């Protein structure tokens, strides 16, 4: 199958493989240890999947804000997103 039209690059392949791996890991985690909705520092009660979605979406916005507002390398935004993701998943 020729996937040339999709214009794959190594960084985007790694990005999508990571997302798919996270989803598979979350599914396995849910089967092994089903989660209940709970209330953390976020204003709504969330499941584990909700917190992942919130973490990923807000990480995208952190990257965009960094790109739009600062001239510095995006790795800082990436590091901040990782920390934020961990905080949301644990205490969100």
């Amino acid at each position, binding site marked *: 199958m020729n996937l*040339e*039209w*999709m*214009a*794959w*690059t190594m*960084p*985007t392949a790694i*990005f*999508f493989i990571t997302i798919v791996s996270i989803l598979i890991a979350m599914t396995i985690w849910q089967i092994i240890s089903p989660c209940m909705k709970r209330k953390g520092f976020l204003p*709504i009660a969330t499941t584990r999947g909700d917190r992942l*979605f919130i973490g990923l*979406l807000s990480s*995208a*916005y952190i990257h*965009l804000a960094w*790109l*739009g507002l600062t001239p510095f390398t*995006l790795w800082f935004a990436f590091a901040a997103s990782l920390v934020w993701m961990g905080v949301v998943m644990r205490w969100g």
Partner: protein
Amino acid sequence: MDKWEDNRAWFLVLPVFVIVAFSAIIPLMTVVNYSLQDIFGPGERIFVGVEWFKEVLHDSRLHEALLRQFLFSGMVLLIEIPLGIIIALMMPKKGWAASLSLVLIALPLLIPWNVIGTIWIVFTRPDIGLLGAAVNGMGIPFDHTASPIQAWITLMLMEVWHWTPLVALLAYAGLRAIPEAYFQAAKIDGASSWAVFKYIQLPKMRGVLTIALLLRFMDSFLIYAEPFVLTGGGPGNTTTFLSIYLVKIAVGQFDLGPAAAFSLIYFLIILLFSWLFYQVLQNAGKGGAQ
């Protein structure tokens, strides 16, 4: 009684998952790939990192189009949701009149989007259009191709005429699903019409209004065909919404990289607001009338 989950039911959603994968996920992956490259043609591309995102985020025309889009969607929601509810409340409850009003009110929804624009071009023409000629006849100069305010008014009228029926039909379905016992209890308590609306009808319509709000927000935020046909984004750029500007970049200038980056930002905005609306409406009235 012990309850157990039958996970085989997940196989029933598999066909939908496959369709969504082909119609949405694979194109989205391609857009992500394009957004990081300069595409010259088939097999001719250069990796440029986040350069297009930087360019798009600092594009003042995109900022203006985004503001216009929020203004348009906000006004559409502020008009269409209350108007749809009022129409639904006024519609006949049963009999032939109910059937007839349902058919009549659904008519604008059956017209293709590009035809809607064409209808309104003719309708608002200052020389022969019913609306345009009538307004001019009253001594008020009307030409939506020259005046930005009149172009906006015409667009809003067209959008409200086209899509309020959807809100009205959804609200009507929600109203008809309320058991009669609620209204009988309210009558016994001597509740006013306003109290019935506030404490019975509105909370019971929350589900359908969530759908109406989400559909109308997403549709109005993605609007393309109607304003493109009616105003072409003009006069000047005053009705150039995000989708029109995006098509100008992608098709007009064939800048696929910036257009892909723009699309992803557009997608993230819609995703965020749809999720926020959904959460707000799902959590609104919790603990109140159910």
